[in-house]
């Protein structure tokens, strides 16, 4: 079996019949995902040390004025109600003003497509769209993202199949380990939506906000050129 067999098929066809039943069984197992397993294990260990943690919390929280109703529109440093519009859905959270959009997405909303890598506005793994423009969510305050349309990689992908940009990455071998890929797909999609006729030379100057340590830049540039053509014929956002 080719190592590529597990990838979604570009033509959208299903796997042969004899594999279906086996797949269904595997899916049940997969539904208990690595992530939910880690979370379950996490709860157990937190419970063990909850007493100590709670004591810290109380000590730390006591001198801090709570938000809401303070003079001059000042809120925090404690939690404040925050409303975010993410992938078309309204999400309400209580967060400290220091919480970054990336951490709100990953830790509070289970949207783990945006990745935390450099955490310093350099590598682009955390890229999301704010009103259709690429931004680093690691240095965007969640509180400051209110009132904007936030799109994450989860919101970019259609229910079935792949977004033309993701598909083009697949077609052009534009990833190796894949950890930078969601950020790249978001940055490249925003770029093509504003520059529907990209050139290779233009890409060299205009997509420097993301890093790929595997060095798949050649494939990524080819993917962007291909996706620009598909997005033109099929329309941009899925």
């Amino acid at each position, binding site marked *: 079996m080719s190592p590529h067999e597990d990838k979604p098929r570009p033509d959208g066809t299903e796997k042969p019949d004899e594999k279906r039943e086996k797949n269904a069984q595997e899916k049940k197992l997969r539904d208990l995902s690595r992530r939910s397993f880690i979370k379950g294990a996490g709860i157990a260990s937190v419970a063990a040390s909850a007493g100590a943690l709670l004591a810290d919390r109380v000590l730390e929280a006591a001198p*801090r004025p709570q938000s809401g109703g*303070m003079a*001059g*529109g*000042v*809120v*925090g*440093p*404690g939690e*404040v109600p925050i409303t975010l519009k993410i992938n078309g859905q309204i999400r309400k959270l209580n967060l*400290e*003003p*220091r919480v*970054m959009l990336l951490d709100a997405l990953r830790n509070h909303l289970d949207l783990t497509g945006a990745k935390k890598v450099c*955490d*310093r*506005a*350099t590598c*682009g793994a955390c*890229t999301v769209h*704010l009103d259709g*423009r*690429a*931004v*680093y969510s690691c*240095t*965007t*305050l969640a*509180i*400051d993202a209110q009132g904007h349309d936030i799109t994450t990689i989860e919101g970019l992908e259609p229910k079935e199949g792949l977004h033309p940009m993701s598909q083009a990455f697949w077609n052009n071998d534009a990833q190796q380990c894949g950890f930078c890929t969601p950020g790249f797909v978001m*940055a490249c999609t*925003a*770029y093509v939506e504003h520059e529907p006729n990209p050139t290779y030379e233009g890409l*060299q*100057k*205009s*997509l*420097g*906000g993301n*890093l790929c340590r595997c060095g798949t830049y050649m494939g990524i540039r080819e993917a962007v050129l291909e996706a620009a053509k598909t997005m033109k014929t099929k329309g941009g956002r899925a």
Partner: protein
Amino acid sequence: MDAFEYAKPSSLKEALGLLGSDWDDASVFAGGTDLISLLKDDVVDTKRLVNIKGIAGLNRVHESAEGVHIGAAVTVEELFSNRMIREQFPAIIDAAEGIRSPQLHNMSTVGGWLCQRPRCWYYRNGFGLLALDKDGQSLVTQGDNRYHAIFGNSGPAKFISPSSFGPVLIALGGEMRIEGPKGARDVAAADFFVIPQKQGEREHALAPNEIVTEITIPAASRGMRNALYEVRPKEGLDWPLTTAAVALRMRGDTVERARIVLGHVAPKPWPAEDAAKWLVGKTINEENAAKAGDAAVQGATPLSRNGYKVQLARVSVKRALLAAVGERRV
């Protein structure tokens, strides 16, 4: 990063009232790409962020009889895609293009582009802006100084001014409006950047309770041929190794007046006045541009590991001059 208070005032008066008399009391916040990173690294502490993006009037570019006014909260992308800026001030477009990250273009503001803190790795790793050891000796001169200053480094400050917009603004004779509790003051961009002489001093003329609100490029600079050339360490996002910004008033093929400002070579943007004077009355060609480059690096005082930057600065001046008169090369 410690927890902080947050406010997004809608008026300048309100914003000024939220700042304090110490740097740690409150920080002016706009794009946040630099400030948030400094907070995460505990290089900067703050009790409060004052978001100035909600203040009316800070996010527009407009022209008047005095010149072109750029609000401090205008994003680099907005400036980059502004047709009037493109036509009149290609040096600004060059500088913006040098920031190779569209994410930074979309987030960063013009005020932050000028007020960003130095990239010196001693500073960024918590050794202070002047990076002195316990005996008061410079860690920079003793250590790895390959990206540090080759001019203006006789005092304790050895870092380089990080902004690529700073040299352009000075070459264009720009001014900055600073608002504080006592009202507004206009400062020439050339005077905004300063070289700190002792611990606790900063690399700009701001007080903790002041905000840069507007940048003005005077009408007198209209029609000057201008360009920025930067030598880059790599294709993607990084700060330049050296830059040169030039603005030329031409009469036919002859230079009537010139301004040349080197960037990323000193703790502040570094005007090359002798080179600019030498150019008056000359035409810009390969030979004269190279000679101006030679003149611009006269008196450089490189440290132990950054002598190579003298040549890069020399070439930056030459290529910026040629670009300004239309001979652009990559």
